[in-house]
């Protein structure tokens, strides 16, 4: 039954036929090697790309088509997380993309941790033995401390597997794995071939990952730059807005001081004028009565003299009427001045918007000569406001409207209306209008189109500040001819 199978041979024993067979084999080997070199060159050219997915696809496809390795996968290393992650696979019913393997676990995990190639020809059998030992250990109550059974990505019953670490400059890029359900199908030649491809693939994958990483960083940088630019713009807007706000506050303070000075002056003048006005009014009444009495006496005592001097009496009477009218006019002006300046009133009170508009138009009567003033007042309830401040708004806007009109002619239309929440005052002129490029800046303190030394550029800025204090606002609309100012005021108490 026994027979020796060990062989003892020397080259001298070879026959001619054996030499011929050896030569044929060498020729076949040479031919195969030449073919493999060409294939490797072809694959290398495909790996000369920067698209990671394309590279992985090229590697796996060529492994199948050229070498017949039907089941292959590339796992990329995430050393920070201590795992390999399936990046591409070929020939599996479940691609398993994204599945992870802990470095140090299973064939691919151990290959990654040792950074050495592994070729196994009986994997499922070995796993079967180990599982049987485990089951026996557990059955004998000695299973404490055993680890978990791990399901690896890939073929569930792989017998043969070659796994090669992909390393570039001592950096683990990943692991390339080829599997088969047949035992010992991979030999040393396969191992060498896969090794050569893997070596080239490692560099290509490494470069592609670097490129992808650089691209991601560039995109992240672009996003960050965009955010920074946006933040800068926002900051600039905020600084600009804040600067405007400060300038408006300053303008309002200056204007308030001016108004306070004007109010003091008006108060002084009004007070000083009221006394002589009173004397003039009472004296006129006395003089009128005296003249009437004198006229009666003359008629009774000397009709002749009365008849001769009656034209003189009539002229004096007419003169007295003119004086009375003029005195009443002066008294009305003084009253409007006091009313406009609201010198004798509390800071805030419930007032009529129409009264404020009329007072303002009265104060500006002289300036408005030559222009047509159209009042179109709606049903507007009284509002809570600072009357003096509100009059200042009307004054500034109406003055601007007047200045936009020619010296004689033109129309200023004042319209009021109200809804449940607010009052709208529209002051419209048909003058020269506002240049579109000036419109965004008309409320900026210091901005003026009236020329140096003519306007301070504080009028509309002050209006804006006052109305904002009242919880209202003001906007300007350019018209085909002229400008429309829309003043909104809240009903009720306003914001301050």
């Amino acid at each position, binding site marked *: 039954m026994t027979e020796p199978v060990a062989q003892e041979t020397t080259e001298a024993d070879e026959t001619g036929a054996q030499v011929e067979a050896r030569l044929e084999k060498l020729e076949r080997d040479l031919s195969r090697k030449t073919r493999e070199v060409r294939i490797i060159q072809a694959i290398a050219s495909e790996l000369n790309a920067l698209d990671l997915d394309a590279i992985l696809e090229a590697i796996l496809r060529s492994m199948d088509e050229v070498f017949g390795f039907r089941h292959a996968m590339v796992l990329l290393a995430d050393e920070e997380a201590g795992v390999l992650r399936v990046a591409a696979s070929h020939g599996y019913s479940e691609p398993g993309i994204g599945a992870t393997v802990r470095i140090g676990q299973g064939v691919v995990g151990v290959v990654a941790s040792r950074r050495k190639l592994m070729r196994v020809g*009986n994997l499922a059998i070995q796993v079967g033995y180990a599982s049987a030992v485990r089951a026996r250990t557990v059955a004998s109550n000695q299973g404490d401390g*055993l680890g978990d059974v791990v399901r690896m990505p890939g073929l569930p019953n792989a017998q043969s597997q070659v796994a090669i670490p992909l390393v570039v400059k001592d950096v683990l890029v990943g692991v390339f794995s080829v599997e088969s359900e047949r035992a010992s199908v991979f030999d040393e030649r396969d191992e060498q071939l896969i090794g050569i491809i893997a070596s080239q693939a490692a560099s290509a994958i490494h470069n592609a990952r670097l490129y992808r990483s650089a691209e991601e960083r560039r995109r992240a940088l672009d996003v960050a730059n965009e955010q920074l630019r946006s933040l800068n713009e926002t900051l600039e807007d905020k600084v600009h807005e804040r600067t405007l706000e400060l300038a408006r506050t300053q303008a309002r303070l200056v204007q308030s001081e001016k108004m306070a000075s004007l109010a003091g002056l008006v108060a002084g003048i009004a007070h000083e004028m009221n006394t002589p006005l009173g004397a003039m009014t009472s004296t006129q009444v006395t003089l009128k009565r005296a003249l009437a009495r004198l006229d009666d006496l003359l008629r009774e005592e000397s009709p002749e003299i009365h008849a001769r001097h009656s034209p003189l009496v009539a002229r004096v009477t007419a003169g007295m009427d003119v004086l009375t009218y003029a005195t009443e006019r002066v008294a009305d002006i003084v009253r409007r001045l006091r009313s406009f300046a609201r010198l004798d009133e509390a800071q805030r009170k419930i007032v009529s918007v129409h009264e404020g508009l009329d007072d303002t138009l009265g104060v500006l009567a002289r300036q408005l000569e030559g222009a047509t003033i159209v009042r179109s007042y709606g049903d507007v309830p009284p509002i809570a406001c600072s009357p003096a401040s509100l009059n200042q708004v009307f004054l500034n806007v109406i003055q601007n409207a007047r200045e936009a009109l020619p010296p004689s002619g033109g129309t200023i239309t004042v319209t009021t209306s109200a809804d449940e929440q607010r009052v709208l005052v529209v002051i419209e002129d048909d003058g020269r209008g506002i240049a579109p490029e000036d419109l965004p800046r008309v409320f900026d303190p210091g901005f003026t189109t009236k020329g140096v030394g003519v306007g301070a550029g504080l009028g509309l800025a002050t209006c804006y500040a006052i109305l904002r204090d009242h919880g209202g606002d003001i906007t300007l609309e350019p018209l085909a001819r002229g400008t429309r100012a829309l003043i909104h005021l809240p009903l009720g108490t306003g914001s301050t």
Partner: protein
Amino acid sequence: MTVMTEELKPAMQGYIPAVLATCSKDGEPNATIVSQVVWVDDEHVALSFQFFNKTIRNVRENPYASVLITHPSTLECWSLDLRYDHSETEGPLFDAMDMQLQAIASMTGMADVFKLKASDVYFVEAVTHRGRYFEPLPEGGS
């Protein structure tokens, strides 16, 4: 010079466990099952040394051993007369055996149990064909 032929390789794939016989210096025999006999070259095989058991003790005392391997398809058997040569705790052979063991152990939760202490390398002094101890199942059988 004795060399092992390629036809023995399938019998070393571990499909069918091998039977290893050793003997103490006092002449007491011991037989055990080994999951795999590793082909090193055509004159040497290696066995894993994981636990200091009776086999290891015997081999360290008496270097001669015999292992019976079986071809998984034909069920042909061969016995290899072995002489313990040396142990390797590093190098390509040890790394290959250690990596394989670690891979299998980590998949089955046995990493703390299966640890390779050394790769014991044996010189193959003789190879003897033993024929079949079992008949293959008829085709289609189970």
